[in-house]
C-alpha cells in the first residue's frame, strides 16, 4: 500500500506544479507581449508533442549533465508537472477568454480597476468553466503517474510488479492494482463533479462540448 501513497504524492505534486506553472503561463498567453506569447506557445507545443516518457527520460538523464542531481521521484514530479502545465495553461486560458469582453467593459465602466475586474468578475466565472476540463486533466495526471515506473520510482505499479514476482498470481495482482487506480480516478471525478455542482450557476458552463 505504500506504493499507492507514492502514487498519490506524485499525483498531487505533479498536478499542483501544473497549476502553479499553468496559471502564469495562461496569463502570459493572454496579457503578455508578442515575445512572451511566442515563447509560451513554443513551450506548450513542445511539451504537448513529446511523449511523457521521453520528457521523463530527458529530465532524468539531462539535468545531471547540468550538474543538478535529484532522485527519480523528483524527476517524475517535474516531468508530470511541466507537461501538465502546458495542458492546464490552455484550460485556464480558454476559461478566461470565454468570459465576454462586454463583462470586462461593464466592470470597468462601474469604476473597477483591471485587477478588481479580474478578481470579482472574470475569475469566479473562469474557475467554474475550468472545472470539467481540469478534472479530465487531473485524471490523466493520475494515470500517468504510472510512467514513473520507468524511472524506477516505487509507486503503485512497480510495487505491484514486485509483489507479482513473489507470488504466482500476476493477474490478481495487476487487476487489484488497476482497481486501486480506478477507485482513485473515479474519486477525483466525482469529487470535482461535486465541487462543480456546488458552485453551479445557471447559464455558466452549460456550453461544454461533447465527450
Amino acid at each position, binding site marked *: 500500500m505504500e506504493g499507492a501513497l507514492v502514487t498519490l504524492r506524485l499525483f498531487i505534486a505533479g498536478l499542483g506544479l501544473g497549476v502553479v506553472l499553468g496559471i502564469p503561463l495562461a496569463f502570459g498567453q493572454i496579457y503578455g507581449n508578442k515575445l512572451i506569447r511566442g515563447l509560451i506557445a513554443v513551450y506548450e507545443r513542445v511539451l504537448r508533442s513529446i511523449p511523457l516518457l521521453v520528457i521523463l527520460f530527458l529530465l532524468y538523464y539531462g539535468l545531471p549533465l547540468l550538474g543538478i542531481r535529484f532522485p527519480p521521484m523528483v524527476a517524475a514530479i517535474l516531468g508530470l508537472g511541466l507537461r501538465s502545465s502546458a495542458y492546464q495553461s490552455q484550460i485556464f486560458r480558454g476559461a478566461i477568454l470565454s468570459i*465576454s469582453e462586454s463583462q470586462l467593459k461593464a466592470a470597468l*465602466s*462601474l469604476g473597477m480597476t483591471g485587477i478588481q475586474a479580474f478578481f470579482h468578475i472574470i475569475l469566479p466565472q473562469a474557475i467554474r468553466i475550468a472545472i470539467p476540463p481540469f478534472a479530465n486533466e487531473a485524471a490523466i495526471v493520475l494515470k500517468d503517474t504510472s510512467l514513473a515506473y520507468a524511472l524506477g520510482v516505487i509507486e503503485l505499479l512497480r510495487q505491484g510488479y514486485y509483489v507479482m514476482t513473489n507470488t504466482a498470481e500476476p493477474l490478481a495482482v495487476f487487476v487489484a492494482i488497476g482497481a486501486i487506480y480506478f477507485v482513485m480516478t473515479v474519486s477525483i471525478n466525482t469529487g470535482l463533479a461535486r465541487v462543480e455542482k456546488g458552485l453551479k450557476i*445557471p*447559464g455558466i458552463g452549460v456550453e461544454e462540448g461533447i465527450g
Partner: protein
Amino acid sequence: MTEQMILRIEDLYKSFGDHEVLKGISLSLNKGETKVVVGPSGTGKSTMLNNINMLIPPDQGRIYLEDVDVTTTTDLTKIRQEIGFVFQDFGLFDHLTARDNVMIGLTRVKKMAGKEAAELAMLELRRVGLEKHAGQYPAELSGGQKQRVGIARALAMQPKLILFDEPTSALDPELIGEVLTVMKNLARDGMTMLIVSHEMGFARTVSDQIIFMENGVIVEQGSPEQLFNNPQQERTREFLFKLTDLYGEGGG
C-alpha cells in the same frame, strides 16, 4: 434658469489603424438633458460613447465631466463611477444574480456596507420593475429584463450621466417597449442621458435634442421638431426618412 453643464466634448478624433472613425466631434450636455445620437452604423457613435468614459481612449480632443478633464484625469475609476454605461449586449455579470449585479459596484468600488448596498440595489430594481427577479441569474432573464438590470446597475452608482449604447438593438421587437419605458421614466425624472439609438419614435418624443452623425462627423443637431420637420441638410432628411420607414414610429 441656470444651465449646469455636465458633459462637454471638444474636437474628438479617433482612428483604428488607417480607418478614421471620429473626425472632430464636439457636443455638450446640460443637467437633465436627454440627447439621442442617430446615424448609419459604423459612423463612430459607439466609439464616441466608449471615448467618454475612456473604455476606448480618443487620439485627440478633450472630454469634460463637469470641470474634470476625463482624458487626462489621474483617477479614472472615480470618473467612471460618475458615468453610467448601458451596453448593447447588456454586459451583465453571468455569475451574479440580478441584485448582486446591481450591488457589486456599490460594495466593491464604493465600498458600501453590504446591507446598505442591498437596500439600494432593491430600490433600483424596483425602479425598473424587477424587484421580483432580484434573485435570478442573467441566464434566467429575458433580454428586456437583462437590459433593465443593466440600467439599474448603472443607476445604483448615482451617476451624473448615463450613456446608452444601442440599448435595444439586441432585443426582440416585443421586448423593446419595456426598456424604452424605463428610459422614458428616467428622462422624465431628470436623468442626464446620452443615447445612441435607432428608435426614432422614442428619440422624437423623449429627446431634447437629436444629433445626426455620419462618417465620423456631426452633420446636424437640433430639436426633434427641427430635424424631422425642417432639416437643414439633405443627408439628414434622407436618413431620418429611411430610418422612420424601416423602424416605424414604434416605441413612441
